[in-house]
């Protein structure tokens, strides 16, 4: 099985430096790009490859780049921003890529910037990823020294400044437009769209915006082409995917697999199944903002379209495994506590509604639930949906709760009736 994203990653050893990376075939994608391809051709290759955004939204990367105005009349400067603010609970794939093979990301950044003719790029890295920061800083310095960053890269006339910006800690920064505001030195409140970032982004200028994992695919696509990329996958969406599993499985971790493997395969073959004595009740396939999937659907493929058919989403592709000894209500309470505190405070349903839901769940978990609580929770899952709120954070937060109420309402009823958590 080809694993282009992780082929250079060696656990417990430092990542490849620039020379080693080049020896392993690195920066050939960049060479090809700057010597043989126009920006539009790069975008076209990525479009053809069916690469979909790996940050959770799954939008076609090539299509997103095509929205950036090109040509001499386009506003200048243009920007490329990489979302390295991985804070979705249970998600740890971007950390793996940045710590493991920083040059892969940098090469992808330069090619992506070239595709949209951005002359300034920022990697927006979450504050806690200290190791990733150090390794990226080293790699960036190496790239500058080699002339892969800065002015007139490889004599092509293309200039790119790459800055590593460390976040100050807020989940909402992972939202595209909120991140732009954070980069501008403001509070990370999302923006309403239109206008859209490819046209009006950082400081009013066209800005391309991509997740770390998405960018890491770019150099490979340029080197080997869209046909190769599509063949890596088992479904129409191209490429491989870093999947992960955490929870009480035998081997929690992350693995690069063809896009479209099934839930069962990840759970049983790679994560080794459940620890002794435990059975799985459900999983959250793509981090904390996705609906639960119960075992009856474990043959569903982990890709953007297939999971929607079973009422969930791919999200980040790192699954949370919920065993039968873990209290679902407590889990929901934990998730809602997290999301309520990460609300930016801009719009009413998220700011007040999530806090209310978190309080109800905490009360239920601690034995203070009341009979109307389930109706209130359900009402909130109907009220807090896309379009009703200002951004997608709160609707995402409601997804696990909605599925928990659908599949496991009895757990809630028991807590309320018994006035305590049966697991404690």
């Amino acid at each position, binding site marked *: 099985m080809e694993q282009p994203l992780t082929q250079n990653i060696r656990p417990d050893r430092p990542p490849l430096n620039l020379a080693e990376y080049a020896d392993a075939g690195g920066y050939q994608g960049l060479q090809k790009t700057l010597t043989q391809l126009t920006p539009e051709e790069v975008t076209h290759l990525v479009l053809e490859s069916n690469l979909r955004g790996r940050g959770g939204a799954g939008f076609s990367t090539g299509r997103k780049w095509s929205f950036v105005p090109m040509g001499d009349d386009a506003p200048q400067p243009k920007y490329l921003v990489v979302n390295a603010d991985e804070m979705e609970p249970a998600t740890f794939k971007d950390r793996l890529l940045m710590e493991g093979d920083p040059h892969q990301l940098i090469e992808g950044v330069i090619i992506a910037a070239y595709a949209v003719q951005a002359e300034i790029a920022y990697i927006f890295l979450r504050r806690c990823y200290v190791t990733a920061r150090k390794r990226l800083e080293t790699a960036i310095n190496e790239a500058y020294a080699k002339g892969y960053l800065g002015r007139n890269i490889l004599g092509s006339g293309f200039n790119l400044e790459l800055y590593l910006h460390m976040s100050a800690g*807020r989940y909402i920064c992972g939202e595209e437009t909120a991140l732009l505001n954070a980069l501008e030195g403001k*509070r990370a409140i999302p*923006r*309403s769209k*239109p*206008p859209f970032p490819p*046209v*009006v982004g950082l*400081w*009013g200028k066209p800005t391309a915006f991509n997740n770390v994992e998405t960018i890491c695919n770019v150099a490979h696509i340029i080197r080997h082409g869209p046909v190769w990329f599509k063949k890596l996958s088992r479904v129409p969406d191209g490429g491989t995917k870093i999947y992960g599993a955490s929870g009480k499985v035998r081997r929690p971790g992350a693995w690069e697999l063809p896009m479209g493997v099934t839930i069962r395969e990840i759970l049983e073959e790679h994560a080794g199944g459940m620890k002794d004595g435990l059975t799985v009740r459900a999983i959250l396939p793509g981090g904390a903002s996705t609906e639960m999937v119960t075992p009856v659907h474990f043959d569903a493929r982990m890709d953007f379209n297939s999971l929607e058919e079973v009422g969930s989403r791919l999200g980040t592709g790192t699954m949370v495994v919920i065993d039968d000894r873990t209290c679902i209500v407590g889990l929901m309470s934990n998730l809602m506590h997290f999301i*309520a*505190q*990460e*609300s*930016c*405070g*801009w*719009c*009413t*349903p998220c*700011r*007040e*509604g999530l*806090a*209310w839901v978190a*309080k109800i769940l905490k*009360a239920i978990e601690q034995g203070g639930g*009341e009979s*109307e609580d389930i109706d*209130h929770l359900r*009402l909130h899952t109907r*009220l807090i949906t896309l*379009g*009703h*709120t*200002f951004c997608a954070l709160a609707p995402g937060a409601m997804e696990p709760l909605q599925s928990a109420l659908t599949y496991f309402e009895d757990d809630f009823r028991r807590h309320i009736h018994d006035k305590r958590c049966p697991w404690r």
Partner: protein
Amino acid sequence: MVTIYIEDRAYKVEKGQNLLQACLGLGFDLPYFCWHPALGSVGACRQCAVKRFKDEKDSRGELVMACMTPADSGTRISINDPEAVQFRASVIEWLMINHPHDCPVCDEGGECHLQDMTVMTGHNYRHFRFPKRTHRNQDLGPFINHEMNRCIQCYRCVRFYHEYAGGSDLNVMASHDHVYFGRFQSGPLESEFSGNLVEICPTGVFTDKTLKSHFTRKWDLQTAPSVCVHCGLGCNTIPGERYEELRRIRNRYHHQVNGYFLCDRGRYGYEFVNGANRIRHPLRRTEDRDDAKPLMDNEILELAAAMLAGPGNVIGIGSPRASLESNFALRTLVGPDRFHAGLSDNEFKCIDIGCNILQQGPVPAATLQVAGMADAAFILGEDVTQTSPLMALNLRRMRYGKAARIASGFQVPDWHDAGVREIAQLKKPDLFIAAPYPTRLDDAALRAVYAAPDDLVRLGFAVLAALDSTVFPIPDLDERFRAPADEIAQALLKARHPLVIAGTACGSSELIETAANVAWCLGRKGRSAAFALCVPECNSLGLGLMGGLDLNSAFQAVREGRADKVVILENDLYRRADAQAVDAMLRKARHVIVIDHQQTATSERAHLVLPAATFAEASGTLVNNEGRAQRAYSVMSPKGEVRAGWRWLQMLMKAAGNSGASSWLRLEDLVADLVRNMPVFQPVAEMDPKLSLPTSGGKIPRQSHRYTGRTAMHADLEVNEPKLPADEDAPLSYTMEGYDGQPPAGLISRIWAPGWNSEQALNKFQSEIGGPLQGGDPGRRLIEPPASDDGRYFAMTEQAALPGEDEYLLLPIYHIFGSEELSMASAGVVRRAPLPYLALGPEDAPAGDGETVRLLVNGKSLDLPVKLIPDMPERVAGLPAGLPGLPMTALPAAVKILKMEKSEK
């Protein structure tokens, strides 16, 4: 116009609106919080949700926020859709989660937008059972009270304060349900427009602190349509009274003048009406004027008759802070050739020139609304934030106008507040300021240049030469001004609506002429140019149009014995001229009669003092800086012996045997006389409220239909229900009864509509949201450019000699709090006013702030601490204008400044 569908019915609405504007404009009651007509839409609160359908067949639809959705052709929505109704009620329920049960003790109750919207959505049952979050409050200064527990996080306050008004010391802190709106640390809010927070905030977080000292519910206030008296802009206000005390000032919308906002001086400077400094009784002083004796009614007429009899002439000194009617009455008493405008020499000259410019020049006077929409502006010599504050607020809007123009190229509509900001990044507009010292508005300007007034005149001529080199040769100009002059000229030429602003603050009529030149040149080059003249007081322009002799000739007339009786109307002459000259006149005159409402240094020297009514107690007409005559109606009946100034003058005319006054039974009669005598005021007669009164239902009541206690109010004095005071001078009554429909625009006494108890009810009074009032905004412009243009310009006059070798040019530095006479009777204003200082630039004060120097002016000496102002031109000094305790000498003047030796201190 486009057609939209609401509940399947078709409606035509103006293009370019959002659905919330469209629905409100059509009269639908759609709730909202974060949208504001002046601030645009951001889509934060989610209150205005409606159901939108793709087409007639779509029965499911989706919820959208009306404020963020364009009202495009064919848009199809339902307001009553059950899902939308439920969602809107849920939003209220969410907001109520943490909202305290403060209504009974909250100042906002009864005019609270949150109350109104809660009732409108039908939410009424609390399901939340957990503790509420609470906050600590800050002390935000004398004007604004802070009660954060009530906050519903609509973000309007920071959007107004920070983005609209350019303030930087109020912002939102923290996140999720702990967001906090306040300052970095407790302390007075710095923006001169902070008071608008009390009307912007839809709940009781920000309330009027001055009202708290004499609190009254909105429904218990007696209110009337009035005009602010604290500067020359003539912002429209609604004062509120109860128990014979003026309690607060609120905004009265006028599309062309103040719009939705007031400045803090106008909002909080009202205590002079109630204060201990009021003259409430007629007083008589003997020859040496040491003691003042009260007079009985019948005594006054006799005494006045005695005073005014005799061979000597009577001269009258009018006032720029008195109404047209009172000034005209004085003029009628003494005759046009003995009527003096009570202005300082510089002001007299400036206002005279100003009136000429407006009446004869080819460029119209700018309204505040025009100022806000200018695409280039040039201010010559004025710190507008201090002298004409709302002009500054409107000029800050130029930035947004520029951004909106850019945004329209990206198909982002101008009401999409955040979108416009993101696209245009709010680059500074083409606003240029040339002043003798740094001004408060500099941070909004593209370029600010500092120079002494003479150099500013030269700069103005340089700009003119750059606009059109054929008019005058380029003047001798310091090198450092050449580039700015060119830059300013280029920007003004590029603009379609350029604006030139000058004022009386520098005391230089040449500067005003120079500014007019620039404006006229732009107009003659085909631009829609406008000219704004900043005048200091509420009727400066009115007095200027009325004409009158200058003050010096009054001093001269008395000195030379041609007049021995002086009648002074609402004026403290010690603020207008050197103390010696005023002393001399008041000492020499045999009889000095002063009619005023404030005790002043002048009234202290009067033989007869008559208690005049303030604007709150007597109706009158004021003319603002653009020549707009506006009627300010009294809000309460004058108490005791207080009477309108013109009624006292009527009495004096009777005492003097002048029969003309007997025809003035009510204000209208006087106005008719005024207009007959001086045709320039003809439009004032057209403002006759009888012309706009509704045909049935009686007068417009000043009291709401929920006013309470009117029979109990005076029961301590007399148990029988008292006869209500009549008002001969206005189509308004001092009662609850009367016409209960929507009054004509000029008679709007309160902003209220069924279900809309707060100022948001204004939506129902406008012909379009954010547009003119229904029936047209009140007031009448008196001056428009003449039909033909004689093409002339003002030539550069001989420049006065620069200050001598060891002298400084002392200029007045205006302060919004401190320089204006009436507002300084309000404790809060005094707190915000500066202490005396002497401003110097770095070359003249190397030791910096705090060093004490001795100022020698007019033979007097004054020790003052130095305030170092970077960029203050060399050998220019500044003294805060109008502060009590500082010599009221006519500035600018040449002065000597001595540095103190350490041993002298």
